């Protein structure tokens, strides 16, 4: 959908089984911004990797407030309506489609060689005034790379340089004497983890219909092996859609899918995952020690900048994490309905939609003496849970015409929904045998009576909603169209006083081309002007926030009142502060636009202006500690708007030997915070990162939500005079101005002679100026070609990735290009032992995130009608073919994540892959 529908952004999460992040018309709320998916009438908030997307027949994106209003609270972020395939009148048809192909990461980051890093480290020593001597690199003007490192638990490693006697290999011991032969050329950690992936998909659909019934049965198998070692996703699904008309006034039907999946990707968009590990592990370390066991960091000093040993071995982590981890996710979802039409036009419908998601997992954690903090015992964990969501809708609708002038359709409906979930998990330590056939919770040998108690977890949730809603559509002469929706929604998440919200919507349309005076404009096939205003409530917050919650969490509430030293009494402490006055968050959207078709509908134009205001936003602003150290209460604070325009242009040529159609869309929105609290200086900060918890995003009245916030970096101090003349910065001693040389010069915004937190300001807008997409279909005889280009322009990215990959002391290529007196043009600050605050959030890390991407190209050939097949088409398709950007990180399409870190490239992104697929569609 990315780029194909205006104002819809889709960010690939990349990894196998991960679902894409979809945003419609920017940010609507600070919490859950996922749109509502309606699949054959089943409503799901957020997308779901259990859905077999090959069954999809049509997708419609609802943005207009009068249409989203029908979906109430769940539809506040926009609605994506999906219908799956149903049978068409005729004999049973069997169709087989498949594709398979490979994928590989587009871009590998380049890293320093061990020698380059050692040289940089020697410069660090020079800069810091330390002697050129180090346990790892010897003594002298040139660092000497060690040849062997011997890890011994609890002590510094033994280091052997070339020319020194070899270690006594017979002493090798995995527990306490691991001998590593260093990799002088440098281990390509990315090569070890990134791999070619493989995807295949097979689908069989049987469908047909008679005048009394229709049916479709589909079977699907999908297998995706990702570009990161051991990441995979496999799904098996079956779908049955049937509908029967036993009487002319009675219709009964169901859509049901069962889906089962295994595997998954990695925690994406993180500053702590296998990808960020790769950046932080020195290439000097080999993957395996001399005995073929994985090399570790235990016994190598973590945090020692000479070695940069990083965390645990990422290859060990991926292999062990995946091979010892099992389980499944499954889903049973669908609807069943009955329609009764006692009088023509009057339909009573009762529909029940059900989603049941059971899942199970178990994993074995072995001991790895080479890992830091490796447990002394192995352990086995198992758990599972389910969620059940049902929604029962009863609806009475009536369509009638009063002569041919007035067409009226109306309905009233009553809906109830209940969501229940439960989960549990347990861990047992110390399995005497580690065979997979012995991996059960009963197999552990508890070390003591307490350890088991600590290792059981569980929880659950219940949410309920009720709604009464109605709709009247009135059309006069098919020319003047009016629609009115009124909803009254109730939610268990709100207290007695504010439990219900009432949300009206109205819209009007004028089909100008139906007017007589337009008759002479024959080139204008269709023109419709429309205006709408609508409101939706939103209750997407956790349950139970209206009352103070007390928990018996043993970590913070139990106490040894008996003075026994090993037995605590159970206590109950405040866990979550409640707010009985919580009320519905409201989305109010105004939409004005037109749709036009010209020249026999060959050329189409659609234009919309919208203003989407979110008010009474549900959020947890900073909260006083005087009320207790518990989770802060949610409050209805904040108001912000997304104003924007969308334009869609389409053109379809006449049918000839070469024919084509194309679609171009462009959209823009401006986000602005309108209100936070009575205190006009109030703001809300986002997440912090790294050891100094650098805050990167701040929301404040008048600014776009989650704007970048930090210092203005004015350059690097080149001379001591420059240091003396400038305001005092943290870690720089002006009485000894040498300490400032080579460090970042930050702007003294308030001119008080000191650079501190007061000198931070807004330094960039993460929201794009506009996004666009271009879609071309070209047909020549039996060939078809599809090409799709997407682009984003004007957004800024906070390149936090740089702070640990292209930075003094980091391992990425270019990290050694730091400021020195003989390298004064360097962009990076000097690397030395310092308290200077170069890594603070500043303009240095802000980059243009614009890009244009040739997202996909598909070339197909349909064989002329053959006897054996009703249809035979083959095609080849490539994804992510070319990207044009100035962004210096790995890829500008970073997952947008939450407003707390919107637009921040945390580095731990699943790599964007180039994919090449070949497919076949066969119809019998």
């Amino acid at each position, binding site marked *: 959908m990315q780029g194909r529908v205006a104002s819809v952004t889709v960010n690939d999460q990349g990894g196998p089984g991960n679902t894409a992040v979809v945003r419609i018309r920017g940010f609507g709320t600070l919490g859950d911004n996922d749109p509502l998916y309606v699949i054959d009438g089943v409503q799901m908030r957020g997308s779901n990797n259990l859905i077999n997307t090959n069954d999809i027949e049509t997708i419609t994106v609802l943005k207009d407030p009068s249409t989203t209003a029908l979906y109430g609270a769940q539809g506040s972020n926009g609605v994506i309506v999906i219908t799956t395939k149903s049978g068409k009148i005729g004999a049973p048809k069997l169709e087989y489609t498949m594709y398979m192909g490979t994928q590989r990461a587009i871009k590998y980051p380049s890293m320093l060689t061990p020698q380059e890093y050692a040289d940089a480290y020697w410069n660090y020593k020079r800069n810091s005034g330390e002697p050129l001597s180090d346990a790892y690199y010897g003594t002298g003007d040139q660092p000497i790379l060690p040849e062997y490192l011997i890890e011994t*638990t609890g002590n510094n490693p033994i280091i052997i340089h070339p020319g020194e006697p070899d270690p006594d290999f017979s002493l090798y011991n995995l527990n306490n004497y691991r001998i590593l032969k260093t990799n002088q050329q440098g281990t390509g950690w990315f090569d070890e983890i990134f791999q070619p992936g493989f995807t295949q998909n097979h689908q069989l659909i049987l469908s047909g219909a008679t005048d009394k019934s229709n049916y479709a049965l589909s079977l699907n198998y999908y297998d995706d092996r990702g570009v990161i070692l051991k990441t995979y996703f496999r799904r098996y699904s079956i779908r049955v859609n049937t509908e029967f008309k036993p009487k002319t006034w009675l219709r009964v039907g169901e859509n049901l899918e069962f889906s089962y999946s295994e595997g998954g990707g990695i925690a994406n968009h993180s500053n702590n995952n296998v990808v960020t590990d790769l950046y932080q592990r020195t290439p000097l370390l080999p993957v395996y020690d001399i005995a073929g066991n994985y090399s570790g960091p235990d016994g190598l000093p973590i945090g020692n900048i000479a070695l940069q040993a990083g965390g645990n071995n990422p290859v060990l982590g991926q292999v062990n994490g995946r091979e010892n981890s099992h389980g499944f996710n499954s889903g049973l979802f669908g609807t069943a309905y009955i329609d009764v039409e*006692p009088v023509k036009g009057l339909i009573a419908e009762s529909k029940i939609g059900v989603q049941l998601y059971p899942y199970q997992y178990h994993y074995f954690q072995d001991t790895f003496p080479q890992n830091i903090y490796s447990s002394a015992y192995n352990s086995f964990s198992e758990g599972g849970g389910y969620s059940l969501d049902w929604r029962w809708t009863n609806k009475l609708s009536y369509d009638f015409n009063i002569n041919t002038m007035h067409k009226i359709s109306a309905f009233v409906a009553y809906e109830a929904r209940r969501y229940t979930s439960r989960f549990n998990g347990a861990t047992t330590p110390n399995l005497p045998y580690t065979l997979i056939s012995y991996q059960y919770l009963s197999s552990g040998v508890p070390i003591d009576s307490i350890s088991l108690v600590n290792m059981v977890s569980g929880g659950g949730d219940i949410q309920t909603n009720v709604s009464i809603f109605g709709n009247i559509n009135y059309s006069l002469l098919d020319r003047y169209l009016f629609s009115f929706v009124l909803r009254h929604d109730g939610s268990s998440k709100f207290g007695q006083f504010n439990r219900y919200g009432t949300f009206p919507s109205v819209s009007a349309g004028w089909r100008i081309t139906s007017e007589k005076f337009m008759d002479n404009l024959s080139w204008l096939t269709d023109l419709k002007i429309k205006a709408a205003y609508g409101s939706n409530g939103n209750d997407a917050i956790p349950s139970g926030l209206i009352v103070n919650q*007390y928990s018996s969490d043993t970590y913070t509430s139990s106490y040894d*009142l008996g003075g026994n030293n090993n037995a605590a009494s159970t206590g109950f402490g405040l866990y979550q502060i409640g707010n009985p006055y919580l009320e519905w968050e409201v989305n109010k959207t105004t939409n004005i636009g037109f749709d036009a078709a010209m020249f026999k509908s060959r050329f189409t134009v659609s234009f919309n202006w919208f203003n989407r205001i979110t008010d009474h936003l549900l959020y947890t602003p900073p909260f006083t500690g005087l009320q207790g150290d*518990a989770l802060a209460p949610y409050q209805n604070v904040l108001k912000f708007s997304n104003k924007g325009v969308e334009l869609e242009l389409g053109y379809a040529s006449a049918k000839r030997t070469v024919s084509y159609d194309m679609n171009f869309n462009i959209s823009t929105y401006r986000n602005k915070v309108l209100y936070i609290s009575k205190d006009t200086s109030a703001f809300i900060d986002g997440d912090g990162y790294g050891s100094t918890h650098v805050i990167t995003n701040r929301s404040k009245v008048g600014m776009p939500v989650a704007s970048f916030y930090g210092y203005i970096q004015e350059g690097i101090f080149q001379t001591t005079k420059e240091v003396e003349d400038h305001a005092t910065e943290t870690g720089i001693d002006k009485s000894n101005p040498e300490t400032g040389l080579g460090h970042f010069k930050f702007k003294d915004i308030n001119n008080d002679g000191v650079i501190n937190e007061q000198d931070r300001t807004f330094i960039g807008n993460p929201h794009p100026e506009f996004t666009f997409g271009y879609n071309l279909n070209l047909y020549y005889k039996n060939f078809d070609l599809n090409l799709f280009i997407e682009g984003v322009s004007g957004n800024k990215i906070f390149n936090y990735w740089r702070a640990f990959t292209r930075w003094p002391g980091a391992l990425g290529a270019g990290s050694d290009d730091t400021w020195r007196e003989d390298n004064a043009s360097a962009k990076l600050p000097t690397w030395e032992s310092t308290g200077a605050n170069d890594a603070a959030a500043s303009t240095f890390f802000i980059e243009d995130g614009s890009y244009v991407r040739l997202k996909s190209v598909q070339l197909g050939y349909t064989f002329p009608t053959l006897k054996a097949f009703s249809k035979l088409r083959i095609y080849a398709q490539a994804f992510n073919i070319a990207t044009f950007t100035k962004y210096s990180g790995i890829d500008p399409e970073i997952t947008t994540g939450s407003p707390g870190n919107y637009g921040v490239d945390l580095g731990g992104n699943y790599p964007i892959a180039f994919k090449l697929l070949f497919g076949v569609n066969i119809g019998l």
Partner: protein
Amino acid sequence: MKSLLIKITCLYLILFSACKKDFLDVDPQGVVTEDVLSNKNGVIQLLVATYHDVTGLTIHSGWWSTSGTNWIYGDITSGDCYRGGTNDNNDGIVIEQFRETPTTAFFQDKWNSVYDGVSRSNAVIRAAQKATDMTDAEKTEAIAEARFLRGHFHFEAKKMWNHVPYIDETVTDFKVSNEPDIWPDIIADFRFAFDNLPVKQDLKGKANKWAAGCYIAKCYMFMNDYNSAKALLDSIIPAAYGGNGNGANSQGIPYALNANFDDNFNGATENNAEQVFQIQFSANDGSNGGNENIGESANTPAFWPISSFYTTWKQPSFNFVNAFKTDGNGLPMPDDFNNENMTNDQDVAGDDYTYYPYQGLVDPRLDWTVGRRGVPYLNWTSEYLDPDYTQYNNYWVGYPSNPGSDPNFGWINDRSFGGPYNPVKNNYRADQVGIYGDYYAQGYLMGSAVNYSIIRFADVLLWAAECEVETGSLDRARTLVNYVRARARDGLYVPVSYDYIGGYYPSANYYVDIYYDPWTDKDEARKAVRFERRLELGLEGHRFFDLVRWGIAADYINNYLSIEKTRMAHLNGVSFTAGKNEYFPIPQREIDLSNSNGAPLLQQNPGY
């Protein structure tokens, strides 16, 4: 007709299928509400959680910043120790160097932690008031216990920040001014507890009547109201110590000094007659470490297995160690103890086997308080270290001597930053791993179950001595100090044997005795009492607050720094600002959030 009937039936079923009226009433799952807890059982459970907060470990708290032992705020600021470890620019170092600002995160942590205790105390009171299955006497006792704890948490806030808001169970608008002095409120809470708590409690860890009494005396000491304190202390101190009171611990045992100084810091001898109110730390109790002394878990010697953090924080200062020197009469040398350092291994290589520890006279409390090279560290001998660890086997085998400060051989992380010493009090012994330490000692959690004394009887006796100096009899003051010194003299010393190259030698020359000569000069007496507090209660989290209540913090600390900075580079340029650093900054966020009609209700302390 039949068809119409069916149609109507279907229509009816579809349209009028009713829903339950209370469909939207859903209780929060996996937790309970205050109503569920408003009964006898719930009140006990709320009370347990309130006691838990005495440890300082709350939902969002840091480990070091909120520790109920106050080592960050009371010790590293006082000249008794450094933050130690390595120079990581952690807030602890910021505080040691008096560089804190209103946004220093540790203060927000501490604020949240102490006011969480207040909030929990208030929840107990509200639940008890609402309970219908409790007698009035039961309610009063539960409320008295809650008010004792509320007094404790407000006292913690008061000594940190001086101007703090007082929150009772009736507060619903949490924008509260910090202008009124809350001493009367704190004393009222303790007074209610004193009047309504029994002496003998069913559980050792509970506060009793006399704990409340002692806490009132502590308030008077902090208010410099020596007359009120003296009167109250006389009614607490038992006849065996020259008083006329009935003070007794929560098991009803009259207050007394333990036979051995170290019995106060040993898990095997907790809740003894000397304990007025202790934090009941416990390990392996199902709390995942939540009741361990996690706040001090980095305050151990470096290296496996005793410490998991390799950090060696809270390292005693040279000045503090020097204070334990004694003269030929076994008395301290308050005027010239610091003229030169005790022999130490700050610049001695770990494999220099000719090093010999200080052989001058020292107070035996030194080695129960400070770990130093060549002296046994409790009973941590090499056999408890990794048996394969040949480095120890070569040299230290069998002899429980501290291997010293060389990072390659010893127990110190970075002596250039933290000096050569480790803290000892409240760390468990080698044979107590798994009893007073975590079962998973090899894991990363190494909290201790050894209780920490918020108030112990030696502390009470020394308050009484202070009162006597200020308003009573110098001779009685001397007697009170002598109780404490006599115990130091007569109790167990650290066993002395040191495997010096070529044979065994005593590791220290202990000599301590009581003051035999009468005190005649009030200033000399005051100096002796204050010095005794440092020796007896050193590294127990009290020192900084003592210096402030005596009004000497600025002079004392700047004087300390003037010498100590010549020994430790990280103290260069550090100074204590009089009128500012006596109290810590109120967290900026709290001031911002107290905004009411455009002006904050919380006022910042002077100088920040």
